[in-house]
């Protein structure tokens, strides 16, 4: 997909929230949705089970309006976290401009985090995308849980963030770190645009 369309003067960024099941991807999107003025957001599409697990994917379009003469849109997607929905994940990942990896800070979820990160890498590779060239930020969610249950930021960085991308502690339920994460991924994506070669 074309990130920047100069003839139509449009910028469209597709950002995918990736991560293991129940790490809080949809929660991130909900928080953003609530903060965006009605006039600027589209309908949030969410297909969830009764237990609030994402079945297919969430989709939140945000219209940022005219920026420097460009009508700017962000499309936020989440993927279903459970292992058996891999085909859907791969589909959602197609044409992504940036990825937010939402990790679960709980110590017992570390293996799931690592597995999901590996899954992200292999799914990107299926689309012919090297994870090193993809704008990526890490968000360590659920930092509001009792300290004995969760890993600290350095520990999580050690275990997951071996590429040293920007990482943020978050409490998506209460909104802490949500916009910081979104801002960071937006900057990475838009900087890639500044480099002069819109990803094709």
């Amino acid at each position, binding site marked *: 997909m074309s990130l*920047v369309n*100069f*003839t139509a*003067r449009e*910028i469209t960024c597709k950002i995918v929230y990736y991560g293991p099941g129940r790490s809080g991807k949809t929660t991130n999107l909900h928080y953003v949705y*609530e*903060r*965006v*003025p009605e006039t*600027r957001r589209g309908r949030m599409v969410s297909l969830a089970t009764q237990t609030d697990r994402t079945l297919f994917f969430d989709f939140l379009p945000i219209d*940022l*309006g005219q*920026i*420097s*003469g*460009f009508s*700017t849109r962000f499309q936020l997607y989440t993927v279903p976290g459970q292992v058996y929905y891999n085909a859907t994940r791969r589909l959602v990942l197609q044409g992504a401009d940036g990825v937010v990896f939402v990790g679960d800070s709980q110590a017992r979820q570390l293996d799931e985090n690592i597995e999901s990160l590996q899954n992200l890498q292999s799914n990107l590779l299926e689309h012919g995308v090297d994870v090193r060239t993809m704008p990526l930020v890490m968000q360590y969610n659920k930092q509001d849980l009792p300290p004995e249950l969760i890993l600290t930021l350095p520990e999580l960085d050690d275990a997951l963030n071996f590429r040293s991308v920007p990482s943020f502690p978050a409490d998506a339920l209460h*909104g802490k770190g949500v*916009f910081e994460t*979104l*801002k960071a991924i*937006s*900057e990475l994506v*838009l*900087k890639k*645009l*500044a480099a*002069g*070669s*819109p990803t094709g």
Partner: protein
Amino acid sequence: MTSTLNPRFTFDTFVVGAANRLAVTAGRTVAENPGSAYNPLFIYSSSGLGKTHVLMAIGHAAKAIATQLNIEYLTLDEYVEAFHAAIAAGQGDAFRRRFQNVDVLLVDDVQFLTNRKEMQTELLRLTEALQQAGHQIVLASDRPPAEIADLDERLISRFSGGLVVDMGIPDYETRVAILRRKAEERGQNFQPGVLETVAKVEYPNVRELMGALNRVIAFQAVNEAPINEEAVRRVLGIPSAAASSTAASSTAASPAAASRDEFSQFLTDVTVTVGKAVEAWRARVTEAVLRWEGEGYRTGRLELLLDQDTPASVDEAIASYVQDVERLKALEAEVAVLDPQAAGDKVFRDPDLVAAAESVAAKVREGAAPPPAPSAVFTLDSYVAGPSNEVALNGARDVIGKPGKKYNPLVIVGQSGLGKTHLLNAIGLELAKKKHAIVACLSTQQFVDELIAAIDGNRIDWWRARYRRATAFLLDDIQLLAGKERTQEELFNLFNQFLDADRQLVFTAPAHPNTLQGLEERIVSRLEGGLVVEIQEPDKELKRSALERLLKSQRVTTDAALIDYLVDRPVESVRNLGALVQRVVEAAAAQDGPVTAGLAREVLEGAPAPRRPTGARTSGIVVSSAGGVRSREKMVWDWPAAADRVIEDLR
């Protein structure tokens, strides 16, 4: 007397936005190429928008690039004061000299020229002097030149003759960026949204914006607690956001208000990032336009980019443009050597016309045929040596061994037909064997004719360049220059250039240069300044070896009696000897008999044998009915009809 540059005012500390980008780019260009890009550069804007900053930044940047530059910054008032002081002290001239030696002159607040006629005259004089000397002048004012009241028309046109750029009020994003940078400089941290709130107020200039920031900083320092947006509004007297906020001030921390702010903060950040990203390519194109325009190239192609919004290939487009410009430069340089006049062609300044430039260059290359070369017939090996031409031959050998160094010029004098032309060409051929040698060897008559043709075709520069490229210049029969004033002038100039560059000059003349009529004294003295060698009438030894060679070339069996007879014949030159042999050989051919001494005696001492015209290729001479020698090499391969021929020794 003049202010020093404030070290804080550099381009690095200047926040560039859409409103001032052109001024900054132009300023940078000027700092990089003082005196050549835009001269004068005139920057105007309302007060407090950064004129002084840009002016000083130009000074810093220019100094950083070339430390030896003499850079002066002063306001007009300082200039006026200095001028009055100098006049009072009777040092008006010293004052003028001082400013005329400044490489980059930065004058601030030029609007105060209003109603100061004497200063206007002074500044006009200074501007003219600086421009003529290629020194840069940058002026700043709060209004464009035409709006400065009472400003002399000449000054207006002079100021407008360079580049006039304005700087506008910074837009919101730029204001945020300025505030962030200033806060950072002061080591102040603010809560998110505070600076944005300050930036939302549209202050008419940056100074007032700084004033607002100062108030906020002061307020935060007093309260020892981070200031929040609401407090900022109170401090700055901005109407409360309550109108736009759903909550009353008592519930300022309500989720709705906070959420709005979180999103608008995000929006601001994205706006700044997008602004940077989108405008980055525009900045690159504009910079390229300014740069190449400054160097005198047409930039239409790049300007189209700005309209077209096709940034995917911006870098490629700029790269290909630069490549074209480089090619044009190379072509122009090449053509300038061959034909300085053609190098002025405007196709060399338009990268869209590279193909046309190539064809112009090709044409010039084609036209730039090397100057006439020595004739391959007259080799040094075939030159018959003898006591009569020994000195000349030794001189020639020295010249060949050390061209330009030993004898410059070499002047070979002697009567007609003694082999001057042969020796001249032989020297030319030997010199041409050297590496990178371009030997011009021609008759004076051809030189004159070429000059006339060049004047006629308005190609005099081309013609000159053609000879100036030569590494050696050999001119036959210099006496023909007599009375040709223009040719003598050209030769004189060429002469001097060759002497200066130690390039060899060789001339032939029938007699010593100082006995030649109609030659200018300055040329004669230069000819006499080298080595003048004389070729004598051929001696017997020389005649014998010449005869042997001649007969051999005619495939006549050498007969000792014939040679003895011919050597004893009185001839003035080898050429005449050749003519004798020719007659004898032809007579023998007519009778179908052998060439013998008896036949020779019969032919040469009796009546001239009738000769049939023949188209056969023979060597010999042709003397026109007028008696002058027409051909450059005094040789033709076709015999004219008998009636046109006069044999010299019978005359």
